[in-house]
C-alpha cells in the first residue's frame, strides 16, 4: 500500500490530492520596454514532458486594449487565466464609462489570483509576463506561480532569467528603437534556442504601443553550426570519445 500522509488539517477532503505537476509546458518568455511601448517574444513550442508535442502554441495574447500577456509553464492553466481575464475585461466593458483597465490593474489582478491559488495549495503552474502602455505610460511586470511579482525595464520567465537577463542587463538602455529592440530580443532568443532543450526555432514577436497591439507572424532565426572545432572534434586524439 502506498504510504499516505495523514492530512489532519484537510478534514474530509484528505482523499483529494492537490499537488500538481505540469503536463504540457511552454518555455521562456522575454520582454523589454522600448521607445514606443513594450516588445515581447516567445517561441511557439508546447512540450509534453520531453516530447515536443505542439509547435504552434501562441503563448502571447492581447488583453483588453492596453496589455499583452505572455506565459510559460502549464498551457491549460494559461488558457484558464485567459478565461478569467476575458471575464474581467467583459465586466469592465459593460460599465461603458470610457475607462479601460490598464496593464497595472491587470497585473494586480493576476497577482491576486496567483497568490490566492498558491495559498490554497492549488497553484496555476505559470510564470506570467505582463506588459502594456496606457496614456503613454509604459508598464512591464511579471508574476510567478507562487505570487512573486515585480516590475522592471526587462523581464523574462523560466530559462530566460538565467540566459537572457544577463544580456539585457548589459545591453538594454532607455529609448531603444523598434529595430534595436527586436535585434536585442532576437539575440536573447537565439541563445535560448541554443541552450534550452525545450525551445524550438519558431518565434513570435509581439509589440504594444499606444496605437494598439501587433502580434507578428511566426518566423525562425538563422543558427550557426560552422565552427571549425565542431567539424572534427577528435582530431587531436584519434579514437577519443
Amino acid at each position, binding site marked *: 500500500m502506498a504510504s499516505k500522509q495523514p492530512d489532519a488539517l484537510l478534514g474530509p477532503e484528505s482523499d483529494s490530492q492537490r499537488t500538481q505537476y505540469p503536463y504540457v509546458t511552454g518555455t521562456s518568455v522575454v520582454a523589454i520596454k522600448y521607445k514606443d511601448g513594450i516588445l515581447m517574444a516567445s517561441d511557439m513550442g508546447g512540450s509534453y514532458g520531453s516530447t515536443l508535442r505542439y509547435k504552434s502554441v501562441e503563448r502571447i495574447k492581447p488583453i483588453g486594449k492596453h496589455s499583452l500577456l505572455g506565459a510559460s509553464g502549464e498551457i491549460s492553466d494559461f488558457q484558464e487565466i485567459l478565461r478569467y481575464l476575458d471575464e474581467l475585461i467583459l465586466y469592465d466593458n459593460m460599465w461603458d464609462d470610457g475607462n479601460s483597465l490598464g496593464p497595472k490593474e491587470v497585473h494586480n489582478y493576476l497577482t491576486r489570483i496567483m497568490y490566492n491559488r498558491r495559498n490554497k495549495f492549488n497553484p496555476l503552474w505559470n510564470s506570467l509576463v505582463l506588459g502594456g502602455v496606457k496614456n503613454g505610460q509604459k508598464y512591464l511586470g511579471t508574476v510567478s506561480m507562487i505570487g512573486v511579482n515585480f516590475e522592471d525595464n526587462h523581464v523574462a520567465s523560466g530559462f530566460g532569467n538565467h540566459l537572457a537577463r544577463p544580456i539585457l542587463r548589459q545591453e538594454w538602455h532607455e529609448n531603444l528603437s523598434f529595430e534595436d529592440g527586436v535585434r536585442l530580443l532576437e*539575440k536573447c532568443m537565439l541563445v535560448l534556442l541554443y541552450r534550452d532543450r525545450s525551445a524550438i526555432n519558431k518565434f513570435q514577436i509581439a509589440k504594444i504601443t499606444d496605437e494598439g497591439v501587433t502580434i507578428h507572424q511566426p518566423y525562425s532565426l538563422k543558427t550557426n553550426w560552422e565552427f571549425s572545432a565542431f567539424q572534427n572534434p577528435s582530431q587531436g586524439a584519434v579514437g577519443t570519445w
Partner: protein
Amino acid sequence: MSTSDVELPPKGGFSFDLCRRNEMLSKKGANPPSFRKTGTTIVGLIFQDGVILGADTRATAGSIVCDKNCEKIHYMAPNIYCCGAGTAADTEAVTDMVNSQLQLHRYHTGRESRVVTALTLLKSHLFKYQGHVQAALVLGGVDVTGPHLHTIYPHGSTDTLPFATMGSGSLAAMAVFESKYREGLTKEEGINLVCEAICAGIFNDLGSGSNVDLCVITKGHKEYLRNYQVPNHRAHISSKGFTFPKKTEVLLTKITPLDEKVEVIEAGDAMEE
C-alpha cells in the same frame, strides 16, 4: 587455508561495498548531505593564436563567502592550465595530482606535455570515482598539435569545444559567449570577451563574485594575469583609518618568571645504539 584470511591490498577506484547500506538508509529517510556547488564562473575560449582561460575569485561555504580572492586557475604544465569548479578540495587535489603525473611523464618522454594527456588522466581518475570527486574542470593549453579546450564533468565525461563555461554562473557566461563569439578572434578581442563573460557571471550569479583572473596561452608563451579586472574593489575606505578612542590604562604590573624545568642532555648521541 581459506581465501578470506588473505588480506588483499585495495585495488584503487571507487568501492561499492557500502552502496546497498546507503540505499537502505535513504529509503528510511536518512539522506546523506547533498552535493554542494561552491559557486563559480569559469570559462575558456579558443582564439586565433591559442587559448584564453578565465575565472572569478569567490569561494563560498554555504551562503558565506569564505575567500574573496581565491585562485581558480591551476597550473598543470608550462603550456597547460586548468580552471576548476565544484568542491574546492577536489579541484585542487585532482589538478595537483595530474600536474605531478604530467611532470613525471615529461621526464620519461623528454617532450612537452599534450593537452589530451592531461585530459585522459583527469577523466580516467574522475570516472574511477563515479562522480564522487566533485570537480568540474575547464582544461586548456597549446601543444605541438595546436590549441585545445576541453570541459571535464565530475562523472568523467568530456567535451571538446571552441568556447566553454562551467560552474553556477555558466549560464550567464554562456549567454555572452553564444551571442558574441566568432572564429579567429584576436588576443584583445578574446580577452575582452572572456572578461565580459566572467563579469556576467560575477554580477548575475550569487555564487560568483569579486575579481576576474585570466590566463592567455599561446605557442611557447603563457601569461597568467592574476586579478586582471577588479570590478568590486572596496570603494569607501575612510581616510582617517580607525583609532581607538582612548588608550588602555595600566593599573598594575606583575611579572612572574617561569622556572626552567627542562634538562638538556649534553654530549653523546643518545639515539645511537
